[in-house]
């Protein structure tokens, strides 16, 4: 086992993992404590939901949880770098597409120059011009 970092929803979660042949196997305890997921009876569960697993044996092997298979079961993209001991769990294209197709503007919370957080939600009741720009 070695130290590995999974960035999930902007949180960097340190976990123990076994890296063999380009695959990352997570310690099941770290999966539960760090990411909030647990596997039992063919289900992948967190506090609020369970996802049925098509093939539990593909997910749990050699006593570890295969990170790529886990991302697939969660329907989330995974970028990982074995040499750097780090991975990033992105957001599901299906989930993002459903939200945008419903035309409800997704809320966000972002800092201004002074670090103060602002949300879209706090402007509800107004017409909003949202502008994405950059100095580049």
């Amino acid at each position: 086992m070695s130290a590995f970092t999974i960035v999930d929803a902007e949180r960097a979660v340190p976990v123990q993992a076994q890296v063999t042949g380009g695959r990352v196997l997570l310690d099941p305890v770290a999966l539960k404590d760090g990411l909030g997921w647990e596997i039992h009876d063919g289900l992948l569960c967190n506090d609020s939901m369970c996802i049925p697993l098509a093939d539990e044996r593909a997910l749990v092997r050699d006593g570890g949880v295969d990170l790529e298979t886990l991302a697939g079961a969660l329907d989330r993209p995974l970028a990982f770098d074995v040499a750097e001991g780090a991975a990033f769990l992105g957001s599901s294209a299906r989930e993002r597409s459903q939200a945008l197709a419903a035309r409800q503007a997704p809320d966000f919370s972002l800092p201004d120059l002074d670090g103060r957080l602002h949300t879209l939600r706090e402007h509800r009741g107004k017409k909003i011009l949202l502008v994405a720009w950059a100095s580049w």
Partner: protein
Amino acid sequence: MHEELKDHGFAVIAVALDKNADDPRPWIEAARPTHPSLVDAQHTLADLYNIVNVPTILWIDERGRIVRPNDVAFGSDTFKHITGLSSSGHLGALRAWVKGEAPALSDEEVKRQQPLPTAADQQARAEFGLGQWLWAQGRQAAAERHFARGGELAPHDFTIRRGTMPMRGIDSMGPQFREMLQTWVGAGQPFYRPLPDTAGRPGAAS
């Protein structure tokens, strides 16, 4: 614009997709905006709204619904000679919508124009996310690999291909950008994708 229309129940939210607050700071401090001007180093907004270039604007109504999806508009004509896009078309339409003189796009039109992210787009954003995290850890060489991978997966996503240039020590207005742009446009791909009604509005260049 914000000052003129704020009594009509209108707000502007500007979000800079920049690597830190220091990059957009000079622009924001010079403009002294009265509206929130936010910094989004992790490209959260790009991920939520499937934004692939800047500037991108959206209109959101009082109920929090998107009534103009991802469009291209400039606040001034400073770059009109380069972009071919005039600011007046969008500003006029925005003013009319805010004052209730003209409706926004219809539900059907919004649905038709709303770009939805593919699995490759989201994989590219995950590569960006890993690269951005590695870069913030000072692991530049590793970050570079993931920025490059993201750009390969979503070649139309300039928030990745161009937006990572400042982190990679590349001049985002320099020869590497111009070459990227030339190749892209040369292959018949548009760098800016304004909605069709923006392009057709009086005052907007074709």
